[in-house]
């Protein structure tokens, strides 16, 4: 069971003029297995840096990140990433995109196709398996991105504002699709967003960051009932939580 621990980590970037900018400042945090954790904060607060550190694309200057008591040494198949711009392989069909992680694991063609077909079905992409990404709408592209990341059944799913470029309706539908798959496979999900309602709807725990350099401002447990349905968005509890979080974040934007 995956558990991720941030132990007092800091990360500084050097910009083009040689000036250091601290993106993350002394963050300590424990992320629970099998839960959805949303990281919320004003833009430029180091949210994406957190995802890049977790993915192993970059490393902290100070402190350590552990996954199951092991240092994160680089990208790994147990931690897949869903990108804001999807990063779909434009030269591969929908089906080939979904199969890619399985192919890397040397799973044979028949088995791969079977799993890919299953995910195509699950994400409402039936009939589009042989299309190329440029033939799809934004919402469908992000479904392919999700299906591709989930087809390998990762223990940890890292999501970097995956729905932020979608329209309201598509975003809500994809949030619900994500929860549906989550209840089935129960991966740990770390979901970065700047959308408060998205965070409340999805998260068990919301971590709010301060403006740059990113520090933890507060950690909020969301005790809305599970499984969550779209009606929850209209509940009094949801509304109160939104007010509370908005107030907290507002202090950072001013």
């Amino acid at each position, binding site marked *: 069971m995956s558990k991720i621990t941030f132990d007092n980590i800091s990360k500084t970037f050097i910009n083009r003029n040689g000036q250091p900018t601290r993106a993350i400042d002394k963050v300590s945090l424990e992320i629970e297995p099998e839960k959805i954790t949303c990281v919320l904060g004003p833009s430029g607060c180091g949210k994406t840096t957190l995802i890049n550190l977790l*993915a192993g*694309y970059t490393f902290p200057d100070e402190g350590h990140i552990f996954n199951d008591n092991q240092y994160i040494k*680089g*990208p*790994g*198949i147990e*931690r*897949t*990433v869903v*990108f804001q*711009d999807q*990063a779909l*392989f*434009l*030269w*591969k069909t929908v089906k080939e995109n979904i199969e*890619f*992680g399985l*192919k*890397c*694991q040397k799973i044979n063609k028949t088995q791969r196709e079977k799993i890919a077909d299953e995910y195509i079905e699950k994400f409402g992409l039936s009939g589009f398996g042989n299309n*190329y*990404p*440029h033939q799809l709408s934004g919402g469908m592209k992000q479904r392919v991105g999700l299906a*591709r*990341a989930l087809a*390998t059944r990762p223990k940890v799913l*890292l999501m970097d504002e995956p729905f932020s470029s979608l329209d309201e309706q598509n975003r809500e539908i994809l949030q619900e699709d994500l929860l549906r798959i989550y209840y089935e496979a129960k991966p740990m999900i770390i979901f970065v967003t700047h959308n408060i309602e998205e965070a409340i709807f999805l998260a068990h725990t919301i971590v709010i960051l301060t403006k740059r350099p990113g520090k933890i401002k507060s950690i909020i447990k969301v005790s809305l009932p599970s499984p969550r349905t779209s009606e929850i968005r209209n509940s009094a509890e949801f509304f109160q939580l939104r007010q509370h979080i908005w107030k907290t974040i507002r202090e950072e934007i001013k």
Partner: protein
Amino acid sequence: MKLTITKFIIPILFILLWQASTAGHGQNFQILPSPVKVFLAIINLFREGQIITDILVSLKHVLIGFLIASPIGIAVGIVLGYSKTAKKLLAPLIEFIRPIPPIAWIPLAILWFGIGDNPAYFLVFLGAFFPIMTNAYFGVVSVEENYKRAALSLGAGKKEIMADIILPAASPSIFTGLKTGLGISWFMVITAELVGSQSGLGYMIQLNRLLLHTDKVIAGMVIIGICGYFMNKTMEILEDKLLPWRPTS
């Protein structure tokens, strides 16, 4: 329908102007023969048959030189784009040779390979190699980092990064290099045959210049143009077939 007519207005005006400028001074046909004379010369060339051999010889020169240059150019470009060490080692030499126009190699080509097919292959190779290599290099270095990151997080190793990410992502740029390379090959083959060969379309127009058969010289030029056009079209069709994933080509 309207568009197709528009396309022909300028060419037709051009031919009419050409015809008008040659009317009335028939004795000057060695300087500029009329389009009618050139058209008749083309028909005659095909009737005599030698021109078909010349076309095939030129195509052979182009294809062999181009087919040697393509894999080498693509491979060198990819290695330079992928490995920083290879770039440090090879880039200075390549950057030194690249600005030398391939035509400047003609004296050496004749010295080394004599007169015949070989200098043509060599010059076509030189002409095609650099655009193919450069475009492959830029294709590889401009692969977006996010594709590699996505692949790594899906468990890709070095082999998958190269075969599934870098090569296909760079392929439109590689194809651009091949198209440019083939165009330059065609320039180079005619140049090579003008000076260092005893067959081919370049040799044919050079020979007819010496014989003062200007109508045949221009006929040869027209045929060179038509062949180049069809070679370029073939590449475009090939590109659409091989890279169907690109948005609106």
